[in-house]
């Protein structure tokens, strides 16, 4: 994993509660055996709507997505995280995240920033004309308008993101403990 310290740039002010992973990437596009190239299929149903944020030139090249409550609910498909990554998204800000999506995002170096609804609303407003900056070291979101919102990240996830750690390699270092568990339980 590539270390992540800071993410700065334009943000898609998508909003909407309960954005499910079927909406992020439709099932038809899960018929792939690689992780690559899913970005152009992301949010297909939303992209068909007139005036959607993804068609708005102001947000071209955005690296942050701002969503509503329970972002990423539904299917466990990691393709949703791969699609976001492929379209250039490095962080998602929302009032809350579905558990599996948050885990998948983390494994792909996408930062999930949970903030109180008024803070998310404020960032939605600011994002229409300004970039947003997310700093993992200070765990804060700041804007050129002077806003600052602190957020919490699980310490383990934060250190993995900051150091770009490979979780499987970390776990394999516990091989002796795994083997002893198997012996102890007869597994």
């Amino acid at each position, binding site marked *: 994993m590539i270390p992540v310290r800071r993410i700065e740039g334009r943000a898609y002010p998508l909003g909407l509660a309960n954005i499910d992973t079927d909406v992020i990437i439709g099932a038809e596009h899960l018929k792939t055996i690689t992780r690559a190239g899913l970005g152009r299929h992301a949010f297909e*149903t939303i992209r068909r709507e007139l005036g959607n944020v993804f068609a708005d030139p102001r947000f071209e090249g955005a690296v942050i997505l701002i969503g509503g409550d329970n972002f990423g609910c539904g299917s466990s498909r990691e393709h949703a995280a791969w699609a976001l990554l492929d379209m250039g998204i490095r962080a998602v800000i929302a009032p809350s995240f579905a558990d599996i999506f948050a885990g998948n995002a983390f494994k792909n170096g996408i930062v999930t920033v949970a903030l109180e609804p008024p803070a998310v609303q404020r960032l939605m407003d600011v994002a229409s004309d300004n970039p947003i900056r997310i700093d993992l070291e200070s765990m804060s979101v700041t804007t050129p308008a002077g806003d600052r919102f602190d957020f919490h990240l699980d310490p383990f996830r934060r250190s993995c993101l900051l150091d770009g750690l490979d979780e*499987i390699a970390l776990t394999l270092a516990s091989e002796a403990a795994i083997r002893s568990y198997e012996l102890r339980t007869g597994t």
Partner: protein
Amino acid sequence: MTGRPRTLYEKIWDAHVVERRADGTCLIYIDRHLVHEVTSPQAFEGLRAAGRQVRRPDLTLAVADHNLPTTARRGPDGKPLPIADPRSAEQLAALEANVAEQGIRYIEPTDAAQGIVHVVGPEQGFTLPGTTVVCGDSHTAAHGAIGALAFGIGTSEVEHVLATQTLLLKPSRPMEVRAEGTLGFGVSPKDVILNIVGQLGAGGATGHVIEYRGDVFEKMSVEGRFTVANMSIEAGARSGIFAPDAAAVAYLEGRPMAPRGEEWDRLVAGWRELRTDEGAVFERSIRIDANDIAPSVTWGTSPQDVLPITGKVPHPDSFADADRRAAARKALDYMGLTPGMRLQDVTVEHIFIGSCTNSRIEDLRQAAEVVRGRKVSASIKQALVVPGSGLVKRQAEAEGLDRVFTQAGFEWREPGCSMCLAMNPDRVPARERCASTSNRNFVGRQGPGARTHLLSPAMAAAAAVTGRLADVRELMR
């Protein structure tokens, strides 16, 4: 462990801790790993790239389900038929090459035991009470019906489990959903879980593991419990679990992969401890009065959008919350419904009886009971019955259920995920409406533009014979 009273979830968790880190993260041992064709190819690719092997192929079971067409698997000459869609065929070929390379047990598409991964696992006795079960599929909580701690994972975690047989996890918060009372005539486990999701909301149980308690769940059949546990994720829960009782033991005894003889007896004795201790604390607790639950149906594009069949399509303005109002407006537009319309006046063109939620033998029996002696309405374009596994199919055929369905005008298909998720040829066309026993009514879930109404197998059968969303109780009088 300490003498502190613990919930069932905490007991299973504690029994699987390999290492506990200072920040509370635990390395958790995974007893059973189910693998299917859609969420695994990139995991195997990752293993190969890192030069790693599957640590415990003996604790891993693979079966294809999402992509497989549900039409005949063999040609007239008895030879397996290839999958027409080249991308689906490629995904299946990748699974078959990966399991062969790593020595993983695999149930082939033409095997009588093939089926939806969450039907196959318990049916084969692969998943057992007190085990930790994972699969790259969010409906894995289904296995909680027999007292397993089961949850869905992403592909990176699939790779992690393949390589290490463990996962790094933070404990979830225990939550109790207690249902007391008596389920009314025509009310099924699907109606119970739809109402729980409606009450909690689509994200209401995020971060929690639900334990289903109370006399409604104690009296519920094991197959009904699969339906309930399966949809725990629709309320955002990490998992859902039932304490394994005599019914769960009876369900599993003698299954092909279940232990036998003395080992079985020893396990069964151990499972008696798998219940929440007196005085254990749930972080949250909600109560459901079973007497209040009616046969139900969803009207929107989230499983939380549920109402009794006697209800009317809601006005978006009736929701207190601004987000919910906006979501309801969008949902009604997508669903092509008008506020105030009676749900029973909503006509449907497609019927789907199947999915990991409702494709077991009891589901098919309940649907067949409604269909028996009736015909699928002439206004229905397609009505599918897709058994959850080849063994369910065989059992249904032995009971003559296939003929009840086909004589009424249903198609009787081969097992698979089918019309639940639009990854195989079974789809609902844009702007057409499906009464579906599956688990998600998301935008585009059953095909781009498809409109889904979630309901029970008996209610789907009622919709089939009337051509509209109908109150099954009126047909059963």
